[in-house]
Structure formats: structure tokens, C-alpha cells
């Protein structure tokens, strides 16, 4: 009989080790999955998870002059990690407060919509300084969308998981309608897409020859700032206390309602920022497909980063690699794109399972039969 026995103190070692074990189990289960699909498991895993790393390593070890041609993979990993880190860090704070914003994808979409609306309605030929209000518009879009579950939760005790999740689909259909209607490019041959953004609304590229853009700076600033907030400030303390023991929070004089508003607006704003950054950096227009699934994948990022905003940076890189690996695998192994999602799902599954070990130890017991 396998018994879970509570530990007297949560294990700090396992709190760190749990993501590593989860990654290991994901690789194992992934290998079995590959074998069942008739692919060589080791090779498949290599392509999926180690090749992107390998190329990253190769890039570092190359002599100065030859680096540029190899810049593509590492810069693509970082480009994918930017929205994941922004959303994931916000969700880490939100989840710490025991508030479950599952609708970051919708807030991301609203950020893109409001930002896009601002960009598309700006006068022709504005200067680069207009990028700032564009990004702020994205933040406001995400916050507005997150304000709905916050209001309904505080006012009517409506479950924020359901409300935020449902609103994701509302945002998705709103975007779909906009690019087929009001925002539709008149010269777009009927395709559901807006006009291209003018230059002022495109994220400046940092390294020539890659897509690595200014967003990386914003992502690092945001995650570090949230990390400091959680560790050093009263606001972070408040969030942690309300999440761990709401009654103790009330005893301390903290307002639970204000905390719910705060974490939802914060995570929604960051998701909106990620949405505005992403459309401006990659597709540079509004269209139905703007990778809103980052909003869901960022949930895994937050957990992989131990609900620590700085950890989300690390989690974002791991998940970004799984995206790149997935693209490689599509090309080299003719695997369906859905396998990437399966891998990400397994990772979250094993991660939540392994987290049990932080508070419990496993014991094998011989059943005592009389």
C-alpha cells in the first residue's frame, strides 16, 4: 500500500527539485508516447528538447565573427519566451493570492485589440514615441478584461476561474469579428486581417538579422520588479497572506477585495501588454491568429517557476524551447503540431503531481491483515 504521509515542515529541497523531476517524467512519458506513434523515442526527444539547447550552446561557443548566422534559434527562443514571461510572472502573483485567473489568453487578446485599435486609428507618419501609448493601451485593454472577473468575484462571489475562462472566448470572437468587419483591410483581398501597423507601432529590433525586440527588456524589468514586490514590500506580503490564510489577512487589516482587484488587474495588464507586444513584434497587424494560447501556456510557466515571478523567466525559456522543438519535430519527424500541446500538458500534470512531495512523503506500507 502506498501512503502519503504529511511532513512536519514543507521540504525546501523538493520545492526546487519538483520541476526537475517533472521535466524528467515528461521526457519519459513523452518517449513512450513517441514509441507508440512509431517514432524512435530517443531521437524524437533529442529533436524536441535538446536540439534547441544544443544550438544555443553551439552559438555561445562559436567565434565572434560566425555567430550571426546562428543567431536564429536562440533569438527565436527568446522571442517566444517574452510573452510567456510577462504573462507567467503576472499569473504567479495572482495564483499566490489564491486567485485563479485562467483567462490570460482573453486579456492578451484584448490587449492586442485595444493596442491595435489605437495603432490603426493613429494619424499617418507619427514618430516612434507613439509606441509608448500603444503599449499602455494594450495594458489597459488587458486590465479592462480582467476587471470583469474581479468585479463579479468581489461583488457577487462569482468564480473567477469560470468567468475569466469564458471571457477568453468572447475576446477571441470579438477579434474575429473586428478583423472581418470594422478593422478589415480594404486592400486585403477579403482576408480577415487589418492593415499593417505603421513603423512607429512596431517593436524595435535589438539585434540586426533576428526578431529579438525591445520586449525582452520589458519582460525582464517586469519580472524583476514583481520579484522585488513579492519578497520585500508590504503589497507582496499582503498578497501572500491573503492567498495562504484570508482570515489572517483580515486580522492583519488587509482587504481581501482589494487584493483580488490588485492581482487580477496586474495579471490582466501584463497579459494585455504581452498581447500588444506580440502583435506589434511578430504579425504586425491584427488577424484571427495571434497566438493567444500563450495565455494558457503561461499557467505552466507560472507553476514551473514555483509561482515566483523570477522563476517565471526560467519557466518561459523552457516552454519556449518546447515550442521551437515542436516546430523542429514537425519538420524533421512529420509529427503533428498538437504533440507540443501534449508535452506542455504532461509537464503541468507531472509538475502538480510532484508538488505533492513538497508537503508529503511517500511511504510503502505492508497492509496489516488480521
Amino acid at each position, binding site marked *: 500500500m502506498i501512503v502519503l504521509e504529511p511532513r*512536519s515542515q514543507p521540504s525546501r529541497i523538493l520545492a526546487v527539485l519538483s520541476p526537475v523531476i517533472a521535466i524528467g517524467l515528461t521526457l519519459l512519458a513523452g518517449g513512450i508516447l513517441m514509441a507508440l506513434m512509431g517514432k524512435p523515442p530517443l531521437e524524437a526527444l533529442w529533436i524536441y528538447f535538446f536540439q534547441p539547447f544544443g544550438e544555443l550552446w553551439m552559438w555561445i561557443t562559436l567565434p565572434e565573427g560566425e555567430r550571426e548566422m546562428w543567431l536564429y534559434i536562440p533569438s527565436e527562443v527568446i522571442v517566444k519566451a517574452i510573452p510567456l514571461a510577462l504573462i507567467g510572472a503576472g499569473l504567479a502573483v495572482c495564483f499566490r493570492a489564491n486567485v485563479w485567473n485562467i483567462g490570460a489568453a482573453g486579456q492578451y487578446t484584448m490587449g492586442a485589440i485595444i493596442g491595435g485599435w489605437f495603432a490603426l486609428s493613429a494619424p499617418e507618419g507619427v514618430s516612434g514615441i507613439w509606441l509608448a501609448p500603444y503599449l499602455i493601451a494594450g495594458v489597459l485593454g488587458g486590465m479592462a478584461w480582467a476587471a470583469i472577473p474581479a468585479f463579479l468575484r468581489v461583488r457577487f462571489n462569482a468564480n473567477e476561474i469560470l468567468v475569466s475562462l469564458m471571457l477568453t472566448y468572447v475576446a477571441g470572437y470579438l477579434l474575429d469579428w473586428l478583423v472581418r468587419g470594422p478593422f478589415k483591410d480594404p486592400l486585403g483581398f477579403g482576408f480577415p486581417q487589418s492593415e499593417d501597423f505603421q513603423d512607429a507601432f512596431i517593436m524595435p529590433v535589438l539585434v540586426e538579422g533576428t526578431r529579438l525586440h525591445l520586449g525582452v527588456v520589458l519582460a525582464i524589468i517586469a519580472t524583476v520588479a514583481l520579484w522585488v514586490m513579492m519578497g520585500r514590500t508590504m503589497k507582496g506580503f499582503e498578497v501572500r497572506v491573503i492567498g495562504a490564510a484570508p482570515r*489572517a489577512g483580515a486580522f492583519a487589516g488587509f482587504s481581501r477585495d482589494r487584493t483580488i482587484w490588485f492581482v487580477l488587474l496586474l495579471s490582466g495588464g501584463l497579459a494585455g501588454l504581452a498581447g500588444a507586444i506580440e502583435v506589434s513584434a511578430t504579425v504586425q497587424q491584427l488577424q484571427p491568429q495571434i497566438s493567444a494560447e500563450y495565455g494558457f501556456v503561461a499557467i505552466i510557466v507560472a507553476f514551473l517557476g514555483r509561482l515566483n515571478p523570477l522563476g517565471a523567466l526560467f519557466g518561459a525559456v523552457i516552454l519556449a524551447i518546447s515550442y521551437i522543438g515542436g516546430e523542429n519535430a514537425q519538420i524533421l519527424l512529420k509529427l503533428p503540431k498538437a504533440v507540443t500541446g501534449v508535452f506542455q500538458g504532461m509537464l503541468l500534470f507531472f509538475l502538480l503531481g510532484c508538488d505533492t512531495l513538497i508537503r508529503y512523503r511517500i511511504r510503502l506500507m505492508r497492509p496489516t491483515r488480521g
Partner: protein
Amino acid sequence: MTGPGHADAGPGTPLFEARDIVKKFGEFAANQDVGLVIQPGEKHALLGENGAGKSTLVKMMYGVMQPTSGEFFWNGARTVIHKPAEARDLGIGMVFQHFSVFDALTVVENIALALAPEPMKALSQRIEQVSESYGLAIDPRRAVHTLSVGEKQRVEIIRCLLQHPKLLIMDEPTSVLTPQETRVLFETLDKLAAEGCSILYISHKLEEVKALCDAATILRLGRVVAHCDPKAETARSMAEMMVGDEIAWVEKEGAAAETGPVRLMVDRLNLPAASEFGISLIDLSLEVRGGEVVGIAGVAGEGQSELMEALTGEVLSDRAEVILIDGEAMGRVGPTPRRLAGAAFVPEERNGHAAVGELTLPGNIILAHHAAEQVATRSWIDFGKADGWAKRVREAFDVRAGAENPTAGSLSGGNLQKFIVGREILREPGVLVVSQPTWGVDAGAAAVIRRALIDLAGRGSAVLVISQDLEEIFSICDKIAVIHHGRLSREHPAAEMTPEKVGLLMGGAHPEASEIPAGEVA
């Protein structure tokens, strides 16, 4: 119901016996070589402080958990109890300290959940029969949320009796009862025992054990330290066996010498119940002067937690003037301004209300002192200051912990309570409101805490103690009021009160009546 494998043994065989029971949680032995013998029809007390291993032993007897080693015997036959259903089949019934009843259901519905399916009407009749023959008055059709705590306990007892137990285990049954209700319970238990049902009575109230039981087993730190006849012992001698040491009895010396001005005043506090099953506070008034300890007695769930939340500021009153702290109107502000005005609070629940189990001790200092003692500015936390505070509290109140930087949740109940009370007292608050200061705390820690409360009042602070423990109220309070159904009686000087008088008020004798009818006291 005795199964086919359990033939009745001859006369002289104990009904139940536990031999060399060991239960380990990791390295920690909650029970070590515990032996217990219960004769048929015996009223057997299981005594011990909190953490002595009483609950662990009983949970194993009831099949909730399994011993690491050791054996149980039922009527002389070795037996293993895998789960509560098997315990019930043997004839073991248990009344838990925390009732497992559903508030929204009626009495008969609650009882039906525990039994094999049968028509509700027939079951109602059986309930009425049992309740009549054992003096456990209850109406099967009533919704459980309308019952008093004592009546809820009756539901649990009836539920057990309907299963014809041979051994009835009662876990701290009187902690929720008034002295009068306790007497009724004891009559029921006497009757049961006379019919041949054995009782295992778990308690730390020694006077009760002396009155009820004819045998006792005393546990300390997981081991049996004595078997004795409680009628032949004194309460003090049994207490010393429980604690293994001479006990420092804390008593207030004489009446409060000089009391100062009113430092805490509650003026006609009215608070509607927060939920369907909550208690409304009605016209509740009290005042506590500097230098005195005022006690609020009452059985559980009569509005104490609602009053506590109104005093801390977690729930706001309708008018600011309802609560005056050192003359300042505080009824409409939250806990932080009240603390800044010089008040401090110790709620009943240690883990999750007064402290956060996941946080370290300095973290729990920040929880209460962030503004009141400037452990943080509006935005930044001063961790050095929090560490210093935690260290001072640990030294002043002898808070012991296994680890270097422990989380609050890893401390024992007594040590965590000492930390929480110490955290507030070291502030030298002008007003201290404390609920259940020594609930579930070992005798040593309880003495430290009670002493500290008396000393704080001695230095001129106003101390309000809300407690269900009458012994505690009488040992430390200068004045006593009683809360019942959300109403508070007027304050009586402790010297004029007896447990019987308080018990009458606890049971709902009219608190408005200024004099207690002495004739009704037996």
C-alpha cells in the same frame, strides 16, 4: 452487533484491551507501548494533556488509523479494526469533539445518513424512543442549525445509541456544555453503564472525571504513566500525574486593587448574523477599565467569534461610537487604526487567523505589527526589525521550536500560542482582547499565558478574556459576564459568582435580570 468470529468470552474477560500499542509518525512516537483495559459496564477515563496521545489511541480504536505495532482484543479475541465501519460492527460507537452533522438537514436526516436504509417514519419513532429512555430530549424533525451545541451533541449520541454500542467513546464531550447540561449528560452515561455499556471518557477536566468515572488511564507524552481510581485521587494529584511535575496554579491575588479609567467600551453593539447559521449580536455592551481583567464566559458558538471580529475591526459596526478604545471612536475603522490606538488582539484560532502557518515567525510578526510597531513602512518591510521582534518574543515567552527558522505551523500548539500572546503583550497594549487564551495548550504554557495576562492588567492595561473554560475565567478574571445567543449579561464581580450561577446564565437564564435567582441553583 457481534460478528460470528467474536464469540463472547467468559466472565472476567475485559470487553476491550489494548496491548503494547505503538504509533509512529515518522520518527515521532505518538503512542509508545500503550496498554488499556476496559471492563464491561465500566466508565473509564482517558486522561492526558493535549498532545499526550489520547486522540491517536482513540482513532486507532475506532479504525481511523492503524497502529504501527501492538494488538487490540475484543472480548478476549485478538482483533484488527481496519475502518470505522468495522469498529461499529464490533459495537464501538464514538462521539467526536467536533460534530459531524449537516446544519441544513433535520435531526432524523442526519441520523439516517449513518445507518442502514430504513423508512424515515420508523427511524423517527426509534429516535423518540431512545431519546425518551435516556433523557436526551430532541425533536427528530427539527433542522440541526436551530439546535444548541448541547442538542447537536445529543444527536451524535443518539446516532451512536441506535447502533447498540457495547463501548461508547466520548472525546471531550463537556467542552461545549454548561454545568447543567453536563449533569444531564452524566445521568445518561450512568444509565448506559448500568445497562452494561462501557464508556471511554476522554477529558482533561479532572473534577468531572472524579465525579463520573470508576477507572482512569493517564497518558503523558505518548506513554501510560498511571492507572488509577479517580475517586481515590484528588484533582491535583491526577493533574500532577498528567503533567509529570508540580503545577504552578495561577490565581489572581485578591480583588483588583485600583482600577483606572475605562479603556475599552462597547456601547450597544448590534450586528446581524453574517450567514444563515451565524449568531446575531444584540445590544451588546461592556466596559473594561485599566488594571482589570474581565472575562466573558459562554459555551461555544454563542456569538464569541462574532464579538471578536467586531472588536478587532474585521467586521465594522454600524456606528463609530459603538467601540471606544481609550475614548477614541473606533467602530467604523479596521484593525490597523485600532492597533495604532493601542489595542491588541489574540483571536481564538491560532493557525489561519492569529498566525499564518506557512510563514516564519518574523513573517507572523509583520502580520500583526506592520503598522502598529513600524515593522514596515507603507511599502517596504523592515526584515531586521521583524527578526528582532521574533527573537524578543521567543526569549520572553520561552517559545521552543525544532528548527532554526521555523514556520508557525511547525510549532506545537502551546508554543505557537505563547508566541502569539507574547507578540501582542510585548507591545504593552493599553487594551488587550484575547479569545480562548489557553485552548488546547499544555498546563505549563497555560500558566505562562495566564500569568502574563494578569501582569499586563497589573501594569494598567485593560484585558478582556473570552473563554469557554470556566476554571480559567475564575482563576484570572476580576469581573465576569456571560454571552448567550448573542446577548451579553451584565458584568458581575468574580467574587460574587459561582460556576453554578455562571452556568445558569450560560444556559440562557435571562441576562437582563440583574439578580440571579438563587433558588434555582441546586
